[in-house]
Structure formats: structure tokens, C-alpha cells
């Protein structure tokens, strides 16, 4: 699992690459926690190369959402595959994020 972070003006884009399972969630947690600091602005989670998400991965998304809600920012989830979209739908996460 790899996370590439790009910052441009006030927008932070995190490219999530690989499988976001429980071990990967633990691995990327420090990087994602770092993104919470940017949650007052616009944070884009690009999932075009994310092949799987577990509950631990969903919790990471939720942590960012909470940080954004507290700071008045916005989390955008971009380019999710249909499988991951289905996971978002069945867990009720689909309407928690702006999906692009």
C-alpha cells in the first residue's frame, strides 16, 4: 500500500495505491493523520488505484471526515471503483463524502 501526497495551492491530493486492508491501514495511519492537519481546506482522496478497502480503511476515511467537519474543510473521494463504491453504499458511507 502506498500513499502519494501532492499539495497544490490550498488543495491536498492523496493518491491511495493498492489494498487498504488492516495492516495497510496501520502502515499508512501516520501519513493520513498528517492529512488531518490539512482538513481545514480541501483534501482529495484519489482512489483510482485503490483495489480494496476494509473496515480499517473506512475508519481512516471517517477520521479525516471528522477532522474536516471540526475544521470546516471538505473531503472529496475521487475515482472509486464500483466494488469500493458498493462497500461505501452497504455501510452507509456513500452519503458521508462528496464522491467525484
Amino acid at each position, binding site marked *: 500500500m502506498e500513499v502519494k501526497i501532492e499539495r497544490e495551492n490550498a488543495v491536498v491530493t492523496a493518491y491511495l495505491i493498492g489494498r487498504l486492508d488492516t495492516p495497510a491501514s496501520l502502515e499508512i495511519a501516520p501519513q493520513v493523520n498528517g492529512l488531518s492537519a490539512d482538513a481545514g481546506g480541501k483534501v482529495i482522496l484519489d482512489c483510482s488505484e485503490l483495489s480494496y478497502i*476494509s*473496515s480499517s480503511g*473506512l*475508519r481512516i476515511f*471517517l477520521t479525516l471526515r471528522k477532522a474536516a467537519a471540526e475544521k470546516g474543510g471538505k473531503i472529496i473521494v475521487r475515482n472509486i471503483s*464500483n466494488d469500493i*463504491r*458498493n*462497500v461505501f*453504499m*452497504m*455501510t*452507509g*458511507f*456513500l*452519503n*458521508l463524502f*462528496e*464522491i467525484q
Partner: protein
Amino acid sequence: MAPVPDQHAQDLLAQYQSLLPVYKQMADVIPEKLKGFFDEAGIIVAAVEHRVKSEESLAGKLKLKGGKYRDIFDITDLVGIRVITFYIDDVDKVASVLERLFEIDWENSIDKRKAHEIDSFGYLSLHYICRIPESAYTNPEHPELNRIRFEVQMRTVLQHAWANMNHDTGYKSGVEIPRVYLRNLSRLAGMLELVDDEFSRIRRELSDYRRSVQKLVASGNLGEVQLDGDSFKSYLQIGPFDMLSRRIASINQAEIQPVDLSAFLGVFKAMGFKTLGDLAALIKDYSDAAYQIACFQMGITDLDILSSSVAPQNLCTAYILKNGGGRAGLKLMLDALNGPSESNGFMADFLLEQTKDLPFMNK
């Protein structure tokens, strides 16, 4: 050339100049403190304005009636604060906050609302002359702070608008205004007074409505309660979907993340539900079907987190499918909840595929 003020006026102006920093501080600090107290009291005000009388304006006042004042502390409007409320009822609430905070000089305070004859209309405002009591605040560097009186004007936005328009006519300039204009202004004052009363009446009626809805929801008479923003909010407070959420969460011993469910109001209304009783019937009649959908979707996963929106989402899904809404109905629901998107069509197809063989679809 401007006339030279007399000695008494000059003394008063000198006192004013030496106290000017204190006046400015009061004009800055008191409104901020007031805003905090209004927040605590739940009073929403449109604005709190302040000003310190300019030296030029004071000189003009002293020229007209300088002999009336023994010293600068006899002049009560050097610091002026104006609180503008949205509702007429709130003028009295603001006044009660002031009464708790300051010493009110009742002799010089005036309620212009009571000053009118029964057949006259015009300036309506409540003016309090206040002083900061020593028990509330003292400043050893400025002991005179507790001697300085200041004026607080309280009025509604409409009264404020009228006062400004009236002021613009320049009636104080000495130019005689034709009677017809004064009568028009007076008519307008009467109309705005009616509008102020109407706003307050509507607010009172809305509060009564909300209380009655809460009472009906609490008593279980849901069939009598129209489905709208207020009633749905009250209904959500009793957690109508909680039991189904817990049942769904038990599939994977999942943790439930509570989320705002207000977006479902539009979906329920689009589905033709008119009362909270209709929603209660939906929960009663479709909970098993909603649970079946969740079992099918989550049973083969190890997902142990879900949001509280799954229960109403699955209820809507089951209702739409059982009542012939099909793909179009599902897509409309998903568009309403997630924002319109082509991908909602894919999700609708997916839901159709997942549910087609579930027991509730074949009953």
C-alpha cells in the same frame, strides 16, 4: 467662523477630551460583552452598534443647552450603544439583560414605545441610561468609569429602518416638511409596527407548533403529525431507526457511526409519505426486508463499521422495490442521498441484482 464656546462649555469640552480614551474603551468593550451575554441568553440580535459622540457634536449640544449640565458626568449620551433585534419581543429580553448587568438610571431612561398617543405612530425604541456598577467592574486606573453613564437604544430592524428614513427627511434641520410627507412617514410607522407584531406572532405560532409536534411524537400519535422538517427532526430525536440499525450491526458485530439523517426527509416525501405515522408503518412493515438486504450485502464481508444511515437506506430500498419503483426509483433515492450521478445508476443495478432473490421480494 465658528462661535467660541463660553467658559463653562470650554470646561466641559476639556473634561470630555481627558475622558475620551475611557469613552472609546467603553464603546469598544461593552458591545462585545453584551454580545456574549445575548448568546448565553439565546437572544439572536441583528447588530450591536456603538459610537462615541464627537467633539463637534458635543460642542453643538453644549451651545444649545450647556447650562443644563454641571459637569461632564451629567451628559448621558457621550457613549452610545444600539442593539437591533429581529423580533419585537426580543427588545424586552435585551432590556432585561441590561437590567441584570448595569445600574439603570430610570429617571432618564425612556420607553418611546409608550410615549405615543393611541392614534399616533412614529419612533419606537427603548432607551436605557446605564452605569457600570462597582460590584461588576472597577478599574483603579480609571475610577471615573463607574460614574460615566451611557445610553443603550434597543429597537427592531424595522424600527431602525424607519428611524433612519425619518432622520433622512431632515426634520431636525429646521426646514418645515410638508404635512403630506410627515403623514406618509407616520403611516409607514404604523405599517411597520403591524409587520413587527406579525413577525413575532409567526414566531410564537411556530414555537407552539414545534412543541405540539414534540408532544404528539412523544405520545405516539404519529398519524396526526404531518411530515415536514420540524416534525422529522423531532421524530429523529426518539431514534426510530435505532432498533433496525442495531439488528443490522449485529450481523458483523459492527460499530454504528451516528450520522445526520435529515437528507432522508426528501426521499420519504418523494416516496409519498405524508405523516410520521406513514414512517412508523414503513419501519414496522419493512424492517425484515431491510435486514435481509443487509444480511446479503454484509454477511459475506468482515465489515464491522457502518453508519446509522444504513437502516433508513435499506428501508427505502425495500419499499421502492416492493412497490414497483424499480431501477428508476432506486436511482432517484441514491441521487437524493448521494447527489445526482451516473454512478448511482450502476448502484441501482447492483441493488436490483443483489435483492432479486431475497425472500421479501418473492412474498
